[in-house]
């Protein structure tokens, strides 16, 4: 028997470079992992609730390849998907939504030009606007980073999360750089604080290594969705088995 109310979502993330998916460990050392459309379909069939495709290509040529890929994904896949990477201005958002994306994810662009969030929310509604936040905990506390985790900023995580929600972001995709790629579990304390403080759904990212980590991110971290890449890509965790496990642990998931 399913629980009533919105289910917790399991979201595989596919980093795409030149039309191929790759996955970094701690944001470096990219590994080849497969074809985005095939992989997306396989995940949809396996019970993924949503997909995220991040374009990590820098070139203009790569950008066109990515837009074509978005259209292929939208034609063949019947679950929602978010695209991010290389979004600098409203015209990038227009291009990706017209190519068939359901939501777009902003990261560095939101920090450089916060009003872009307001513009997207006004034009398309908050539900298409995901704001991705990469942050690291150090002696000063949690601070945001830009450019794929390469550039530190003076923005405190919790203040920035509030601001993006106020400006109209419909969801926050929070990646803990301390936990990303380490596979020792999600940043539960920071997530629980975000869930309590910020009035939009939180997608947790960074740290998934085993099934128990997903249970904890929902029950202790109060996340609305959990995102992971390599544990799914390399078959370390099977999504269908993961969701059965979560249902048995009392988490409302779609089976």
């Amino acid at each position: 028997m399913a629980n009533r109310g919105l289910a917790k979502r399991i979201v595989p993330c596919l980093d795409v470079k030149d039309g191929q998916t790759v996955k970094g460990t701690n944001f470096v050392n990219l590994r080849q992992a497969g074809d985005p459309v095939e992989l997306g379909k396989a995940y949809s069939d396996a019970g993924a609730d949503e997909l995220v495709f991040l374009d990590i290509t820098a070139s203009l040529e790569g950008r066109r390849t990515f837009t074509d890929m978005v259209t292929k994904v939208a034609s063949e896949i019947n679950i929602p998907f978010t695209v991010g990477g290389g979004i600098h201005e409203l015209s990038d958002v227009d291009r990706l939504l017209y190519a068939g994306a359901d939501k777009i994810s902003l990261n560095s662009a939101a920090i450089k030009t916060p009003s872009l969030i307001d513009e997207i929310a006004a034009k398309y509604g908050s539900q298409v606007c995901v704001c991705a936040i990469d942050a690291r905990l150090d002696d000063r506390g949690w601070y945001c980073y830009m450019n794929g985790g390469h550039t530190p900023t003076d923005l405190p995580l919790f203040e920035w999360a509030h601001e993006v929600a106020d400006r109209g972001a419909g969801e926050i995709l929070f990646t803990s750089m301390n936990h990303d790629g380490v596979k020792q579990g999600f940043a539960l304390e920071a997530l629980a604080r975000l869930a309590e403080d910020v009035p939009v759904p939180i997608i947790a990212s960074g740290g998934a290594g085993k099934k128990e980590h997903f249970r904890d991110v929902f029950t202790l971290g109060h996340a609305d969705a959990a995102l992971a890449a390599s544990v799914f890509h390399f078959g370390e965790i099977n999504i269908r088995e993961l969701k059965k496990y979560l249902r048995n642990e009392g988490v409302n998931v779609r089976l």
Partner: protein
Amino acid sequence: MEVAIVKYNAGNIFSVISALKRQGVEPELTDDAERLAKADCVIFPGQGNARTTMDNLRRSRLDEVIRSLTQPVLGICVGQQLLCRHSEEGDTDCIGVFPVDVKRFRPDSLEQKIPAMGWNALYDLSSPLMHGLSADDYVYFVHSYYAPVCPFTIAKADYIQPYSASLHKDNFWATQFHPEKSGKVGEQIISNFLTLAR
């Protein structure tokens, strides 16, 4: 089989078109009253603000065209809301096929976030549109407003309170959720709707 999609500047319909194509149907996107009237069935999608989309419809008199259709019609998301009598969003008078008024969700805790976005389970299913589904099949929703449970409810979902996930009256069907984004369950619903028109 001719499937028409109402064209009225109401958000991204790429996914709706793709979902129909996957069922072997090549839909026609049109705002032409005659072409809509002669289609075997009509899909009435919708995303965005009820006031803005209703204004778009009125400007081209498509509200009257839709009300007068006699073949199976499927409203999706804001399409369902616009087929109701009134929406609290922008205090908007709507098309009025379903005699029920659309309300805004009023959260009673921080856990209840608006828009309600994600997968929710259906229950109390009736109507051929829900053929082959089991209670507690999940479908994908994105919305801040809802139609309350009423005599035309053919599927319910719970968010804050029970509400109409789907409505049916005469030749009009509607879903608050997005069947085109609801995996295999959504495909079954679209297939059921096409069967109604065959």
